[in-house]
């Protein structure tokens, strides 16, 4: 493996990109899990696919789009979808979850239309769905790096606001935190991270990379800070070993990464049970009633 890594440039690129998303995805995932927004992550990843399908369609008619990285279009769709989701969640205030199926199915529908028009049901699509390490270009690395810097910057700027909002929205608003703005910012950041993660993990599996390491971290963390540390460690472990396994056994990396995260979750959870430590369940008081 090490030999291959030294020999093939695309592999080096793949591991660079993987390393970055193994860090970013669980980090945002911490907020997604505590805010119970897992379905939103799924919705946004499907919108990324719609964007990529749109790009595919456009390249067949306008040569200009050939120069553009498909990820940019994917990201745009995902971000626009994120803004739309926020708006819908305000309109259907008492039925917030209603916004998700509306945006999700519209996105998939539109994506299928674009794909059909572009004759896109081929190998490329398969890579977008389940991830790939083949032909990860320098351009991919730069795109992912660029987005990483932006998201990290925003997260550092608005960490306090987003944390307080996640914990208790009403109190956050009384403290003078602009909840709508921070909420929108957060969902846009999520859209960006999902789009870049897609390159390696694939659309269908992005949300698991955001959720599973966090679920595992929840068992160990005794503070919010520790949540990040554990989630990132578990995320990176899954990505690095998942990519190694994918390369060695010719499997789509999305599959190995997610299966590894799941194994990590199961093994560590069983370990806790065997040691007689409590297994923590995350739920709100509302659900307990």
């Amino acid at each position, binding site marked *: 493996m090490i030999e291959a890594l030294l020999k093939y440039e695309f592999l080096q690129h793949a591991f660079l990109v993987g390393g970055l998303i193994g860090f970013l995805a669980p980090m945002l995932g911490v907020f997604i899990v505590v805010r119970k927004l897992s379905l939103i992550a799924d919705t946004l990843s499907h919108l990324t696919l719609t964007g990529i399908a749109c790009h595919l369609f456009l390249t067949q008619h306008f040569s200009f789009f050939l120069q553009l990285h498909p990820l940019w279009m994917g990201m745009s769709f995902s971000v626009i979808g994120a803004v739309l989701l926020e708006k819908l969640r305000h309109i259907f205030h008492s039925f917030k979850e209603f916004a998700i199926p509306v945006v999700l199915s519209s996105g998939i529908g539109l994506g299928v239309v674009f794909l059909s028009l572009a004759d896109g049901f081929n190998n490329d699509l398969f890579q977008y769905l389940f991830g790939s390490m083949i032909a990860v270009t320098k351009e991919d690395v730069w795109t992912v790096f660029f987005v990483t810097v932006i998201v990290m910057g925003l997260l550092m700027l608005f960490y306090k606001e987003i944390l307080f909002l996640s914990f208790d929205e009403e*109190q956050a608003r009384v*403290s003078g*935190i602009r909840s709508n703005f921070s909420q929108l910012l957060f969902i846009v950041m999520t859209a960006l991270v999902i789009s870049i993660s897609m390159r390696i993990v694939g659309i269908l599996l992005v949300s698991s990379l955001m959720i599973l390491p966090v679920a595992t971290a929840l068992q160990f963390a005794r503070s919010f*800070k520790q949540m990040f540390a554990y989630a990132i460690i578990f995320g990176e472990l899954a990505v690095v070993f998942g990519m190694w396994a994918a390369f060695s056994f010719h499997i789509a990396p999305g599959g190995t990464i997610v299966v590894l995260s799941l194994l990590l979750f199961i093994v560590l959870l069983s370990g806790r049970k065997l040691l007689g430590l409590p297994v923590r369940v995350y*739920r709100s008081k509302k659900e*307990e009633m």
Partner: protein
Amino acid sequence: MKENDCIDEVVRVKDVFFQYHGQPVLENIAFVIKKGSFTGLVGPNGSGKSTLIKLILGLLNRRERGEIYLFGTPLEKFKQWSKIGYVSQKANSFNSGFPATVFEVVAMGLYGKMGLFRFLRKGEKEKIDEALNTVGMLPFKKRPIGELSGGQQQRVFIARALVSEPEFLILDEPTVGVDAASVKKFYQLLLKLNQEKNITLLLVTHDIGVMTRYVTDVLCLNKTLHFHGTAQDFETSDLSSVYKHDVQLVTHEHGGFHT
């Protein structure tokens, strides 16, 4: 009245009406809370106490009619939220598994005051310790918030409201789920905050007997404002006896609900 005309007024409510989906909840409410006062807000269940407080805090913005001023500024333009501390009635309805420590929760009370890109400094950490010490929760500093009892959580939320050193503190039934001995200590703490630190207090409670011993003013609400005056006047009014009787019942029901 011009803005900032009376800086000794913390809250001014003028002819406020409010309804939830066509159901009138507050009618023709008008009162002033003076700086340095300790006001008790009482009334039976569903009388609109929490609604009134949420209106004052700008959490409900579909006000039908009327005006609200905070520190002499119209609510719509008010920005100095760190001057106000708030402990909501449902303070512990947060996600119980939220992986944050007591320290991290209290730190949130400072977030509104801190600028972007700022992290806690030494002085701020000391303030958090001090607030925790005030409510007697310092030994629990590093414990996850979800692993505390309801009453302990309530104290942590009070510490969070105190940490930003507010000039005006609003507490909506903060002692629900707090044991009798602690309730007494809690009232003494409020008295200390009021008298020594000159913090203006607005306290919603059903515990009229205890409350009247500590507060300076009483607001009596049941859709409309039935009484607004000093604690002494309230004691001698008919309302006091009526409410004492009513509310005794209410308190018991209430306790039952939360356990």
